[in-house]
């Protein structure tokens, strides 16, 4: 799956969860999205796992710093 496809899918997931269009870049962090708190982070992780058919390791869930890191873990696994 290309990086572009990954970002497109991620944007769809973000739009569903936060109920608004969000333009993602590798540098996007929770700071940039108003409702991205620890609870919606749980929803997000689980929705990404379901969409891409992969699992994050526990360590990754707590250490991911931005969307770029998330996308590169996804790219490794799908």
């Amino acid at each position, binding site marked *: 799956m290309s990086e572009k496809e990954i970002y497109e899918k991620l944007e769809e*997931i973000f739009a*569903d*969860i*936060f*109920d608004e269009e969000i333009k993602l870049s590798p540098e996007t962090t929770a700071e940039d999205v108003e409702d991205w708190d620890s*609870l919606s982070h*749980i*929803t997000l992780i*689980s*929705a990404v796992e*379901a969409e891409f058919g992969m699992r994050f390791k*526990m360590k990754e*869930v*707590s250490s991911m710093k931005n969307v770029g890191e998330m996308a590169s873990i996804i790219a490794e696994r799908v």
Partner: protein
Amino acid sequence: MSLFSYPLNANDLLKNKRKYKKALLADGSNRISKNIAILGGSTVDHIKDMLELFLLDAGIEPKFYQSEYAMYWQDAMFGNKELDSFNPDIIYIHTTTRNLEAYLPKITDGAEALIGKLESAQKHFSDMWTNLENKFRCPVIQNNFELPTYRLLGNMDGADIHGSTYFVRKMNDFVAEHAINTKSFYLNDVDYISSCFGLDKWSDLSFWYMFKYAMCLDAIPEFAFNLANIIRAIYGKSKKAFVLDMDNTLWGGIVGDDGVEGLELGTETPVAQAFTEFQSYIKKHKDLGIMLNVCSKNDHENAISGLNHPDSVLLPDDFIKIKANWEPKHLNIASIAKELNIMSDSLVFVDDNPAERAIVRESLPCAVPEIGTVESYIKTIDRNGYFEAVAISEDDIKRNEMYKANAAREKELSAFENYGDYLISLNMKAEIKAFAPVYLQRIAQLTNKSNQFNLTTRRYSAEEITAISETDKYITLYGKLTDKFGDNGVVSVLIGEVDENVLHMRLWLMSCRVLKRGMEFAMLDTLVEKCKKQGINEIRGYYYPTAKNNMVKYLYRDFGFALFSEDEIGNSEWCLKLDDYKKQNRYIDVN
């Protein structure tokens, strides 16, 4: 909406919860609002969110109180200002096996120590229940416990007093016993739901380590759905009747084409067995007071001959209404609802044909499960919890008889030329008295499910009804009606608030199963009599319009009340002076 019924799409519900919540709130339906306090022993946020969706879908708009993380016991035992002023209508205690850790057995414990541990764990919970019951007097829902994630003693873990499996099962028996012996205390059967989901998947430990969820995220929608069913049932929103298709729903094959002898029923083939077991499952609902009806595209004669198949568990006599004709199904279903005097949203329509399901779902608010193929019919219907019961009342069990008796009355009515003669022939007897303890549960149930003949549509919990029955600030009446065809049970409820020599009617309702029998006049006569005895000389009646209670818009006028005021949305206030009141009941022998 099928989005909110089993089988659930967990991922979709979790991901789109904001959107769905918005859509539900914007759909214009009337909802009762309820305060729900969640006392959690672990994280509860997603559970709360999912519960909210299912309740909104069921016509209940919840407001939530949420304990600080894992402070369930502190909240219950010592209270706090926020919880106290929240005034909960329901308290839900979300504890899991994680909250038993301090009590779980150790291999090195002696027998006495182990018994002590079990007793302490039980006391930890029962103290809390007693405290909540005394303080809040509202329904309490308590989880039982999921089985442990590992078995130190292998299979012996379930048999030996040192086993955690053994311990959890003992705790579950304890919760069940409390639930069955305590009014307004309800068991949320996590043990069952986690087994259905699959315990290994349910107890995915990463969700505990990362988020302090004692179950995986995917399990939460199903968990919350099951919980919402209990709350629905508490507020009388469970379904009341089945409407069943026949061909390929109750039996394999098409009776009109294949003939009775060609139907798959009995024990000869796997498919025949599946249909037979499904029929037994349906028939058991009849004993619970769920009304069985048929809606089938068939000639009536063929439909009956199918039910007379030698292996058919269901017989023509098990059904209240059999509509076998070629009219569109939604019209038949609407007329079944009308003839039974119930709202079509309390029906469950079961049909193997997806096209029929789609049309009915479009046209009517009844539940229409996606039942799949015959081997999944039972599971799909059962897991939806349509008929979730909070108590099994005599009335429920007798309901089928009562509706059969109604059908007999209708038949007899057509033989009379004059309606008054017909009413006289019914030999009606009523018992109209102040609320009595044995009927409090039924009275609360009626306040929550009567929509049509209901002047104020005020909903009361069993606790509120009990409180009202215990003070002389109110005049209360229940009415029971019997006639030559049978006992209709408690069918009418009045609550009036005394304000010196004026009585304000806070509630006036009647079950639609006794419409046009003159029962309302008998209630009014008794009410007036009671008022006069207490020196009350005026009754004020109130009518608050809803989407469903138009039939009683002019009830007070028809009683002889004078219009006192009316506002622009149709809320009206009526007034009756009692000095020269003349009795209006002509057909019912009271008390």
